[in-house]
């Protein structure tokens, strides 16, 4: 037991920076760039993504001994798709606005490379606790990345931040181009270059 604790902690922490799924491994870019127009939506996306990732990692880790190697990918994909369906129904029931904002990117979590990547590389081979720690770390890493980029884009694109009813306006003449697709790519390029310069990735 004394051995396990630091181990779990490492599995949970590595997703945040060392192996950040978005900035370092460059996976899961579609929702990352598309939903990063506002901080609120980014938080919603992180929650939906986290639910799918935790659920999938839990199940695949539980059944890992009974999965034949040859058909593992189709099995994993079906498990992921089931969790996405559950998430979609829950979001549609409790927050129709979020459902509208996430649009097609909610069902597209199914083919999010981070989820399949973690299942294939980690949770299908490790114990339940380790897989859950890994999933929490990866969700935190994804959340950190998407919330930070959406903060920059919303601030520059609308001149302020809107956050659950509260809104702060920092400057009056926003550059709304940052909300369009070119802005997303450019901000991401800038962030990656900055992180590289600082030696984080």
């Amino acid at each position, binding site marked *: 037991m004394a051995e396990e604790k630091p181990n779990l902690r490492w599995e949970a922490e590595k997703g945040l920076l060392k192996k950040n799924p978005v900035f370092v491994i460059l996976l899961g*870019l579609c929702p990352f760039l598309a939903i990063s127009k506002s901080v609120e939506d980014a938080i919603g996306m992180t929650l939906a993504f986290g639910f799918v990732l935790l659920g999938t990692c839990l199940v695949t880790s539980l059944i890992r001994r009974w999965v034949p190697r040859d058909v593992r990918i*189709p099995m994993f994909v079906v498990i992921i798709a089931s969790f996405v369906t559950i998430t*979609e129904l829950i979001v549609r029931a409790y927050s129709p606005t979020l459902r509208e904002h996430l649009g*097609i990117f909610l069902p*597209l979590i*199914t*083919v999010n490379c981070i989820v399949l990547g973690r299942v294939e590389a980690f949770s299908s081979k490790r114990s339940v606790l380790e897989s859950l720690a890994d999933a929490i770390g990866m969700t935190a890493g994804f959340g950190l990345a998407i919330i930070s980029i959406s903060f920059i884009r919303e601030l520059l694109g609308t001149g302020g931040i809107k956050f659950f009813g509260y809104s702060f306006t920092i400057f009056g003449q926003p550059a709304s181009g940052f909300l369009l*697709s070119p802005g997303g*790519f450019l901000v991401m*390029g800038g962030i990656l270059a900055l992180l590289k310069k600082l030696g984080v990735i």
Partner: protein
Amino acid sequence: MENLLSILLFNLLINNIVLTRFIGLCSYFGISRNLRNSTMMGLAVTFVATSSSLVTWFVNHYLLTPFGIQYMRIVAFILVIASFVQLVEIIMRKTMPKFYAAFGIYLPLITVNCAILAVNLINFDENYSLAASLVNGLATALGYTIAIVLLAGIRERLSYEDLPRSFRDVPVAFIVAGLLALAFQGFAGIGG
């Protein structure tokens, strides 16, 4: 007829799947270092997107809608795509070994290419007819091909340039994609 033409133009240029809608980005940045590989990937995506549009249309109209289980569409479509890719791989290996050697490694990757699932989900959401679904699949995937070939061509040249160290490789690819997206914004007015 006019409707089909507008779907074609809309998805090919105006609402390009990669540059405007942010779909299919992992492979877009993952394999666009090399022009030949990008072209191959684009063609493979085009083939699978068009033909899976056909299959999912029948799945939708003869399986999901009659039984009222449209909420199962994600599971159904991803299964169709996964098995379809597997089938194409087997047929190709037996009948066109030369083609398979060139295409082979890109086919499994396509299962998790979000562009394919997105095309099928859009067909479903927009309630397209069979012809419209096929045109949408073809046009969207060709839009993906155009975008990835453009980026790969630029990246190939950029790899010989003396860029600042921190911008090399991936960061500059995002900047280039941003500029391409900016150029594609120019199509926005066409067709109303």
